[in-house]
C-alpha cells in the first residue's frame, strides 16, 4: 500500500493550477501530480505513490527498482482505471 513506483517524466502540464506530469512506467504512461516535487523537469525520474510523485531518483535506481517491483508482482496499481475529464452527463469512467 505504501508502494511507490519509479517512472520517467515524459511531459509536464497544468491541470487547473496543479503541476502535473505524464510519467512512463515501462510500457504504461499515467498522470502524476508534481506538486510535492515541483522542481522536477522532463526527462527526470520520480517515485510515484497513488498518482503523486514523492521523491526524485536517478535513472539507474529507477530502472533497478522497476524491475524489482515487477518481479515481486507489485505493479498492479498501474492497471487501475484511467479517469478522463468529461463534461457533466458525459461518458463515465
Amino acid at each position: 500500500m505504501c508502494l511507490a513506483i519509479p517512472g520517467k517524466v515524459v511531459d509536464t502540464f497544468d491541470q487547473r493550477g496543479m503541476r502535473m506530469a505524464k510519467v512512463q512506467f515501462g510500457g504504461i504512461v499515467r498522470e502524476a501530480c508534481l506538486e510535492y516535487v515541483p522542481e522536477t523537469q522532463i526527462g527526470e525520474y520520480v517515485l510515484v505513490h497513488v498518482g503523486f510523485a514523492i521523491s526524485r531518483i536517478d535513472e539507474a535506481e529507477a530502472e533497478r527498482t522497476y524491475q524489482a517491483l515487477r518481479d515481486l508482482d507489485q505493479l498492479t496499481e498501474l492497471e487501475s482505471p484511467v479517469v478522463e475529464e468529461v463534461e457533466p452527463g458525459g461518458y463515465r469512467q
Partner: protein
Amino acid sequence: MKYLDEYRDGDVAQKIVGEMRRIQTRPWVLMEVCGGQTHSIVKSGIDHLLPEGVELVHGPGCPVCVTPLEMIDKAHAIARQPNVIFCSFGDMLRVPGSDGDLFTIKSLGGDVRVVYSPIDCLKIARANPAKQVVFFAIGFETTAPANAMLAWRAREEQVSNVSLLVSHVLVPPALEVILQAPDNRVQGFLGPGHVCAVMGYSEYDPISARYQVPIVVTGFEPIDILHGTLMTLQQLEEGRAVVENQYSRVLGREGNLPAQKLVNRVFEVIDRKWRGIGTIPMSGFRLRDEFAQQDAEKLFDVAEIATLEPEICISGQILRGIKKPHDCPAFGTLCTPQRPLGATMVSAEGACAAYYAYGRHLKPQAAETLSQIVAASSGSHQGAIANGQL
C-alpha cells in the same frame, strides 16, 4: 542487463549474510514495519536465508489490515446510498465488513469505483454534479499527502460534491505500543522507507533513544531488506541504538517538506482505533474543522456500528510481533484470503495473507535459491561493498 545484475546480486546477498554470521553472538528479534517489506520478505524467502537466531517478525504497517471493521462498515453504509459514487483504492474492495464487501455492493447496483489517485475523484465529481462522490481515504503517512491534496483541491476548486471518509494512521505511535507491551519481543526495527520519504526520520530519534532500540529506515527490495537487517544487527551487537538510513538513495532526514506542509494544513492528529490492536492515542489523522464540507463522516449520518472480531483471531499478536501466522489454529483453515477472519488476512500485505499466498501453511520451508531471492535487485549495493560499508 538484468541477468548480470542477478548474478552479481547473489554475491552481494551472500556477503551480507556472511557478515551477519560473522558478527552475530546471540539471538535477535527484528521487526520490519511495513507491509510492503513483509510481502517482499515472504515472497523471496529472506527470513529463511538469515542466520539461525536472527528472526524477522512482521509489523503493523499494512493500512488495509489495520483499518477498523467499524470504519469498513461505515464505508459500506455510505456506498449503499443511491446518490453516492464511492471511490476507493483497489485493495479495499475485497475487505469484508459485517455484511459483504464493496464488490458485493457494486454487484447489487451500488456505484463503487476503483481510483488510481485520490484526485481522480475531482474529475468524477465534476462529471457527476448530481451525485455525492466519497473517497475512502485510508493509509499511512506515505498516502496522506495524496489524500490531503484531494481535500485541499476540492475546497479550492469549490467542487462541493466530493468528500473523504478518513481513516489515516501513523507509524511512530504504533512502534511505541509494541515496545511498551510487557510481552514485547522486538529488539530492533527495519523502518518504513516510503513513510520516511514523506515524513523524514527525525521523529524516530526519541523512540530509538527512549527504548534503546535501533531503527534502520529500509527500502523494499530483497537486497535492501538484507542490508537493513545487517545494519540493525551491527547496532545491536555493538550496543548502539540510533536511527540510521539504509534507503538514502531515495530519502533524507527531512523527508518531503512540501508534502508535510499540506498534510499539516489539512489534517490534525487524533486517537485512532487500529484493527487487531485497539485504540492508540494520537495515532492517526482526521480532517481539520475548516474542511468539514469535505468530511464524509460529518456529511453522512452513519451511526456507529458496534462490531465484534472473532475470538479465535490472533492478528493483534501477529501485528505486534508476538506470534506468527502458523501459530494460529484458524490459519489456512477457517481463515483464508477468500474468507478472512481478521486484520492480517484481509490484504496481500498482511502477514497471514502473505504466508498463505507463498505456501507457508505449516512450518518454515526451505528458502528459494539465493539467485532467485535477489533476482529483483542489484546495483547501488555494489557500491556499499566497494566502500567498505558492509
